[in-house]
């Protein structure tokens, strides 16, 4: 089974801090995704990547950036954390962009105070 591992289950950061959320997958998947999940809003796509060093903006990229230096690792960066970025962050990977479903990590619950 594909495993998608998110490095932190819970994080508490201060406003203005630079925050790194890490995600690693172990099945050589081409595509990786970052979603955030908020009550009543479902999952919203922040960024995705279909290859090393390639990235595409999703629906809500503002305030975020990403890095994919190696195929297995996709990092989400909050350049200057704000309280409205308090959320559950879910990383996912898939073999192709469309043909297969996604495998999700266990999520990182980020609180910005």
């Amino acid at each position, binding site marked *: 089974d594909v495993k998608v591992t998110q490095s932190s289950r819970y994080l508490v950061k201060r406003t203005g801090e630079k925050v790194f959320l890490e995600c690693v997958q172990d099945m050589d998947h081409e595509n990786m995704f970052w979603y955030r999940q908020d009550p009543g809003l*479902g999952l919203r796509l922040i960024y995705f990547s279909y290859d090393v060093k390639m990235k595409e903006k999703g629906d809500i990229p503002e305030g975020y950036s990403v890095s994919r230096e190696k195929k297995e690792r996709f990092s989400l960066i909050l350049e200057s954390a704000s309280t409205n970025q308090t959320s559950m962050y*879910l990383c996912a990977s898939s073999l192709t962009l469309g043909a297969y479903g996604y*495998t999700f990590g266990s999520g990182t619950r980020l609180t910005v105070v």
Partner: protein
Amino acid sequence: ELKVEQNPLFLSMQEGKNYTIYCNYSTTSDRLYWYRQDPGKSLESLFVLLSNGAVKQEGRLMASLDTKARLSTLHITAAVHDLSATYFCAVLPGPLVFGKGTRLSVIA
């Protein structure tokens, strides 16, 4: 812009009853996914529906897809407490677009 709407968003049902969750989407797609999320946990894949008329069943859950109506249903038969969770549908093309989820609570 692809939009995915689920209803109801909240569902409280008694054990043993049947109910259906609906998922409508706004543009053509021939592939639809259903996921389950338990409280505090990540998303678990339930079904992938690949073509018009597709039907998949697992235990007390049955999912179907009507691509012409742009509609998928998730039918729950004789609900049990273990089915309490949030259910999401998600649609292609491109990165998956998710509905807002249906929070199901099965009560005795």
